[in-house]
């Protein structure tokens, strides 16, 4: 495991400059925003005169040069101060921390489901590339992956929540139901079926395709021919030799998709009215809250880095070649 840890430490260190670039990017975005936090604040309290605005700007350091403001922004971030949300009238960090668990629950369950189904179906398709089963699954997954998440969410909501009335249409749990313990967990689970199902369906299609494509490539490799020459059972060749190797690009894909998933949470949480991270981004947009929006971007970058570190560790555990210098021929 030291191999994986060493690698992770190196990756963690190398992501610091990347994160710094992200922060500068968000700072520039804040600077571009028409009007600053003070304008937004004054607007929210119903206006104020120029003297108050000037005083506030001085207090926040907004009257200084751009470089000085960047420095202020960076040092605030270093103290984990992500700024003040004018839309919610409270610190940005607290807001994000409050909303994050819902999104992580949503994304985590959708990813886990999609990974399980996607890799299994991918193995079924990739076991015989070009077969009827493969072509059916490949075509189906191509169509499903082309469906925009927000629209699929709407359609599923129409069918299962509006027409059939099997599931709640929105929210993360029944408001003021007074439920506790298992009953509350079951309530949350029922609320999550549709949003998780929507995301999982689309990501199942993606993972199926990645797994299938990986297997199709691996079938052509010599070690598969050698496995056949050893007269192994078909199941063993498919699972242990072909699928086992095709799992590696799928793991990589998990890391690559982390950013896309966080981005996708905005529309899904908006469709199902889930008070999560993505919904917060939309609220920041409608509340013209640039500070909150930038805080969300910085936190999402940190999350993506963390997910990728996790993915690296899993990858290193699955691929013995990682982190060892090539020895021999």
């Amino acid at each position, binding site marked *: 495991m030291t191999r994986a840890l060493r690698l992770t430490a190196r990756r963690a260190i190398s992501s610091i400059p990347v994160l710094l670039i992200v922060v500068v990017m968000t700072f520039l975005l804040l600077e571009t925003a028409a009007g600053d936090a003070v304008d937004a604040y004054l607007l929210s309290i119903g206006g104020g005169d120029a003297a108050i605005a000037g005083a506030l700007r001085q207090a926040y350091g907004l009257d200084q040069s751009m470089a000085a403001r960047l420095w202020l922004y960076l040092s605030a971030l270093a103290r984990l101060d992500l700024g003040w949300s004018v839309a919610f009238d409270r610190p940005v960090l607290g807001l994000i921390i409050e909303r994050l668990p819902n999104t992580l629950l949503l994304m985590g369950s959708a990813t886990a489901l999609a990974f399980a189904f996607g890799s299994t179906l991918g193995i079924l398709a990739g076991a015989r590339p070009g077969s009827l089963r493969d072509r059916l699954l490949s075509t189906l997954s191509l169509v499903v992956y082309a469906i925009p998440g927000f629209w699929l969410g709407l359609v599923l909501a129409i069918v299962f929540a509006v027409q059939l009335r099997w599931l709640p249409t929105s929210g993360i749990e029944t408001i003021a139901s007074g439920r506790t313990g298992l009953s509350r967990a079951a309530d949350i689970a029922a609320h999550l079926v549709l949003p998780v199902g929507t995301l999982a369906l689309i990501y199942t299609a993606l993972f199926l395709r990645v797994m299938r494509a990986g297997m199709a490539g691996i079938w052509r490799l010599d070690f598969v021919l050698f496995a056949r*020459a050893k007269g192994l059972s078909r199941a063993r060749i498919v699972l242990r030799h072909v699928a086992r190797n095709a799992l590696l690009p799928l793991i990589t894909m998990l890391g690559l998709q982390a950013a896309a998933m966080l981005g996708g949470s*905005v529309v899904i949480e908006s469709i199902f009215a889930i008070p999560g991270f993505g919904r917060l981004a939309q609220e920041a947009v409608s509340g013209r809250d640039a500070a909150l929006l930038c805080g969300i971007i910085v936190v999402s970058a940190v999350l993506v880095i963390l997910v990728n570190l996790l993915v690296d560790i899993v990858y290193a555990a699955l*691929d013995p070649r990682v982190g060892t210098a090539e020895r021999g021929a």
Partner: protein
Amino acid sequence: MKLVGDMLRRPEGATGLAILVLLALLALLAPVLFPGDPLKIAGRALTAPFTDPAFPLGTDRLGRDVLAGIVHGARTSLFVGLAAALAALAIGLSVGLAASFAGGIADEALMRVVDAFQIVPSFLLALAFVSVIGASVPVVVLAIALGAWADPARLTRAEVLSVRGRDYVAAARIAGMHPVEIVLREILPNVLPPVLALSAIIVATAILTEAALSFLGLGDPNVVTWGSMIAEGRNVLRSSPFLSIFPGLALVATVVGVYLLSEGLTNALAGEASVERKKSRRAGKYPPLPCRAEGGAGAGDNPPAEQGEEGMLCRTKNLSVTYRGQETPALTNLALAIHAGERLAIIGESGSGKSTLARALAGLLPEGAEVEGTVRWAAGAAPLPGRDLGFVLQDPSASLNPVLTIGEQVAEGARRHLGLSWPKARARALDMLERVRLPEPEKLLAAYPHQLSGGQRQRVAIAAALAARPGLVIADEPTSALDMVVQAEIVALLDELVRAAGMTLVFITHDIALAAGFADRVAIFKDGALVETGPAAAVLAAPRETYTKMLVASHRDLASPPLVGEIGA
């Protein structure tokens, strides 16, 4: 361009293009088909679809024509998708080229910026960008491009770096070609195709992102878009779900079209044969080796070897093999006998059909290969790979699975064919590793192929091939990927193992000197046909055919000493 032709000959590429051409026509003809502003009220509100011929898909809450909206919406979707993808490609290609040519710190810095853009969720970035600057079509295009350029930049850089090292670029440089000319004429044409395949995905992502943005109310409010139509329909989702469903279907159809086109492009790039699919399905995954296949007779019909063929292990008659998609057979009308217990060397240059014979004997021909003629086995049935027949491949670094332990890969064949439990199969593997004289076999069981040298890997492969005690070993150029000294060791090892167990060895090689050292008999192949065969000593001392004479002479001239002492000759 050949690539485009290849792509269109595939069903997925042609279908994708047809969908997109249809959509593009609709988008272009929208002002003619549905003149006037699609955002204007046209009729009664909430007309149900398929009821009023004036509004085939009905009207929305304000009485706007849904079909007109969808057709006009195609303009926005396709324009934003293409424009954003073009912008992303332009930025990505420039940054990728700049990074790969600048090298050093500039490269490092640019790639960290690329990293940053890949780490930030591009949808959040687009959302923030549009909300800060204000929604209009150009801003949306720019916002989407901003989140999409990093992938092509990274790909371009990687492709340029890999292309730049190739010989033809070096040749152009030596020939004094101007660097700019090298980039334009030698590098870009080779870098573009994979970037192009990626760009289809970028178009699809851009179309979906635009739809999501306008769904959230961040699109240009002055144009009709599918996303805004879906959002508008959401207000009356319970009573008129079609208002959201129809534009969504248009969106799905568009993106499916782009994905199909991209798949066609990717497959055309990979040269994956889909045209021959039908044929291969008929032929099946593992073409059964016709043990007596004249007139398509069943493979179960296997009389034992005829009288007067004592000591014969296998005899081929008129054996021809043609690979899928090939005109000329790789092996033509071969008549060859293999005697039990002999060491037969099959000698020929690449393309002589020697490896095809090896695979045909082992029943390991690739999918769709057509086999004619007969192969008769003394045992009656064709040998079962692994159990009756051990196969050693050329390149030991490719023939071992990189993620499984050596122990598992040697033991799995023994477990399967000798009916052993895993612990017993592992014990058998340990024994085999000792026999192929690998150091510290106990430790090796848990090691992975990348931890071994080439020669060690080939020893492992031999151990794995022989683990189930087959009677016949086919070694397909087992030494040509190894260096000289190791070659001799491997040949000596194979020779010794085969001798000790009384196995038959078919040794395939292009190296006549190597074969001369230990083979009982040689068979010389050229262009898919057998040139001559006979006892090794006789053929090499007095070759009958010109080609053999030439082969022998070229080796004698080089005075290459036999690698292994002339033991059995």
